[in-house]
């Protein structure tokens, strides 16, 4: 029986567990959605949902008689989602997710205290402190819930809580704490601004290190759990993107574009993650994606697959900013917009507008990435549930005017986490070796040259349309 590696991904909307053999072939998968509680600026999750879904997944793995073959476990997760735990690693409060804006006042206050020079010294970049920053979360808890703050032993990310749950080890990794790490490593001095924050920070370890050991249910002995890293990185690795000049395109409820390059040219709205293991990731997480397709399908009374099947091109435009937009526009108050409707259009044309609109959002992201990275990646390594439809993939390739190659694995984040764990456990000598053996592409979409004029003409209107509608959409969002 072959050895297996297990990847766990605590995403924003679902917890996924997937086991692969060392060649990357999926032998087990469980993906279960769970809720987020929204209210005004609040977006919070119950950490016990994460842990019980992990436990249920492991029980399924045992029931499938696969647990004993697992040689390493890797965990990845959403980040800028924080959970406050006591000395026994029990959560004291609902997790405050990356989408939660309740700590905006604390963030603004701390941000205002830091001048430009200090910022560069602390972070190596003019990093802003926003409502999702860990230090703002700590300040908020200390001010508004001093009792909880007093009992807080550590503030953890979802992946760190899962690792603590599996191994008992309380730690984290530097890659997952974007905007909180000093240039020479370790948490930045900004945490000294909140009394008691420093002592509540987890220790940091390299992602490919072993965090601790765990014995899976149904398994005979302990196996290593890797320290791991955040979902964007795990996804990037899971689609085989690891060398300069390579690009990734992840698609789920939203679309995330990224490219690797050691060169950094400032580009509006594009994020550049601090380098890790010689990798510098330029990334543009958009807000548009599968959620837009699900939405239009719901409005039309169709399944998403039916909506894609019926789609027909039309001379109309859709801005896919239904929940606002992230990179590169960063506009929480942007909204979805159909422009150019005429009486001959119907469900087929609206559906096509949505598919093309999502692709336009990603084209804008890649154009920013081209600038930021100083290079144009013509082949995009793609992964995630959003690439299920070949028809949509071709529409994307045509709009982007780049070739899409899709990975065989359905959950690139889980595969990336598992690959990191394989390195931690010594099953592969390094990440390069792990990825070259586990990541396989099984579909390729080459842009249709005949579609180029239409794509260019439509895309030329995308940003003007956004600019034109912006003020009104903001006003509508405030109504």
């Amino acid at each position, binding site marked *: 029986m072959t050895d297996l590696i297990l990847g766990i991904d605590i995403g924003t909307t679902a917890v996924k567990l997937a086991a692969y053999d060392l060649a990357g072939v999926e032998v087990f998968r469980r993906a279960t959605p769970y809720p987020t509680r929204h209210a005004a600026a609040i977006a919070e999750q119950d950490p016990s949902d994460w842990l019980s879904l992990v436990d249920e997944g492991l029980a399924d793995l045992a029931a499938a008689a696969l647990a004993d073959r697992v040689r390493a476990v890797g965990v990845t997760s959403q980040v800028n989602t924080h959970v406050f735990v006591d000395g026994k690693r029990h959560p004291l409060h609902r997790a405050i997710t990356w989408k939660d804006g309740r700590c905006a006042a604390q963030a603004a206050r701390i941000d205002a205290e830091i001048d430009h020079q200090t910022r560069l010294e602390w972070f190596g970049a003019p990093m802003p402190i926003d409502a999702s920053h860990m230090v703002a979360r700590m300040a908020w808890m200390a001010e508004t819930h001093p009792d909880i703050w007093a009992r807080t032993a550590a503030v953890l990310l979802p992946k760190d809580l899962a690792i603590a749950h599996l191994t008992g080890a309380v730690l984290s990794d530097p890659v997952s704490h974007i905007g909180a790490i000093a240039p020479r490593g370790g948490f930045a001095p900004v945490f000294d601004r909140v009394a008691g924050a420093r002592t509540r920070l987890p220790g940091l370890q390299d992602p490919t290190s072993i965090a601790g050991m765990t014995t899976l249910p149904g398994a005979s002995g302990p196996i290593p759990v890797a320290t791991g890293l955040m979902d964007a990185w795990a996804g990037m690795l899971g689609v085989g993107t690891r060398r300069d000049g390579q690009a990734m395109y992840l698609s789920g409820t939203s679309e995330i574009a990224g490219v690797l390059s050691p060169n950094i040219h400032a580009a509006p709205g594009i994020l550049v993650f601090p380098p890790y293991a010689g990798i510098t990731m330029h990334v543009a997480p958009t807000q548009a994606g599968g*959620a837009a397709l699900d*939405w239009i399908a*719901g*409005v*039309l*009374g169709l399944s998403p697959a039916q909506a894609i099947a019926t789609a027909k091109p039309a*001379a*109309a*435009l859709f801005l896919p900013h*239904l*929940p606002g937009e992230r990179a590169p526009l960063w506009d929480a108050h942007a*909204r*979805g*917009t*159909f*422009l*150019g*409707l*005429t*009486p001959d*259009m*119907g*469900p087929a044309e609206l559906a096509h507008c949505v598919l093309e609109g999502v692709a336009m959002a990603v084209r804008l992201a890649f154009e920013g990435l081209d600038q930021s990275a100083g290079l144009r990646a013509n082949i995009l390594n793609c992964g995630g549930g959003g690439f299920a439809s070949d028809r949509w993939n071709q529409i994307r390739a045509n709009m982007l005017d780049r070739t899409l190659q899709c990975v065989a694995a359905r959950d690139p984040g889980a595969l990336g986490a598992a690959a990191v764990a394989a390195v931690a456990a010594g099953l592969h000598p390094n990440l390069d070796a792990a990825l070259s053996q586990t990541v396989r592409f099984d579909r390729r979409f080459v842009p249709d040259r005949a579609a180029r004029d239409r794509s260019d003409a439509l895309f030329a*209107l995308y940003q*003007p*349309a956004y600019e*034109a*509608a912006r*003020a*009104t*959409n903001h*006003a*509508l*969002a405030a*109504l």
Partner: protein
Amino acid sequence: MSYTLGVDIGTYETKGVLVDADGAVVAMASTTHDMLVPQPGWAEHRPEQDWWGDFVIVTQKLIEQSGIPADQIKAVACSAIGPCMLPVDTDGAPLMNGVLYGVDTRAMAEVRTLTQQIGAEVVLERCGNALTSQSVGPKILWLKNARPDIYAKTAKVLSSTSFLVHRLTGEYVIDHYTAASFSPLYDVTTQDWCLALAPEIVTPDMLPRLMWSAEVAGHVTTQAAEVTGLAPGTPVTVGTIDAAAEALSVGVRDAGDMMMMYGSTIFMIMLTSERVRDGRLWYAPWLFPGQHASMAGLATSGTLTHWFRDQFARELPRDTAFPTLAAEAATIAPGANGLLFLPYFSGERTPLHDPHAKGAFFGLNLTHTRAHMFRALIEGIAHGTAHVIETYREVGAEPARLLAVGGGTNNALWVQATSDTSGLDQIVCDKTVGASYGNALLARIAIGDAKVDDITRWNPVARTIAAQAVPAYAKAYPLFRRLYEQTKDIAKELSE
């Protein structure tokens, strides 16, 4: 007893009524015909069959059904879709199919040529309206250019109503309201034909005699009596276009009265004591001397509710689809949760006059459903209507009384939203018969048996829709106005 006969020829339907001296409808009959589209942009009716043929069928039915002796029918009036362009020979026989109103765009090249030749300002001042596909003058010029063979045989150019009146009486007449659409051949200041602006289109003898709508044009000839069953010698009024007769039928009679017609498009006719001079609104002398009409129309309206039903409510049974959609939309609060709709699917007429404008939804978020979108669509049409009302206010012609007619008045959400966005109450009258009923009154007026004011007795108010202050609409309206301005260039580019 004495009765009057009113007949109206619509785009697809002809309707007739026999009405007694108190305004009671004693008989009603209808028949249907097709609109011919021989090529894109052309729209025609067959005059012998669709106009005169329908008139005969409906009249015969009415006499037969009611059992009323023909000599008790004291006067006849008709109206029809228009303005149309129909060339007839010296015997009054049609030389081709009737070219329909603004839906027929065959003469757009002539519209441009004539506008350039005369000057847009001069056309507006002398004719009261810019030249458009609605104008008959350019269509006659098209005839001269494209069909010189027919033009050479043309003795008169008639509109649909004129053709019917000629068939009944042998007289060639036209009312001033319809004649105002014969631009650039009619001068609204002198209220007379004027060939000076474009002398090449017609000679004076080719145009019918100008009269007022409630004047007696002539009397039913022996020949017409034989065919229709009417009594020879029955007075026939000059009549008018369908929309004007419809306005009359619901009590539009004084300056400040406005008809709001909820049809496939929204069309408005408002009476004024002075001519309203504004390029955004259309102008014509009213049906009676001394009164003026200022008109406006959206490019789409009812057509959009049909579009939405046909495209997004295919699973609903056709006969209950509108009530279901309206009930869904009624569960959504005004403002449709921050969703805004531009109704310019076929461009827009009043007040934007932009053929390149397009439809749009703004402010979409993941919680919006079909119900939100239908509600936003209705509210968008209502905002479009409020924009027209605002235009009337800007030119100092605030409507004093709004009289709602048409199939759309059955959509409570739509009518209420229109009142709420425009800040005006609306009146819905008891009888919803339409233009043919207005014709019956015109006929009665023509023989001196009634005055216009009698319409309030004939067709009393059934209900009033009170305008309510809805903060969500007040907030959305400026955004609605701004969005068109901000996105019109993109809409234009999308059409290219």
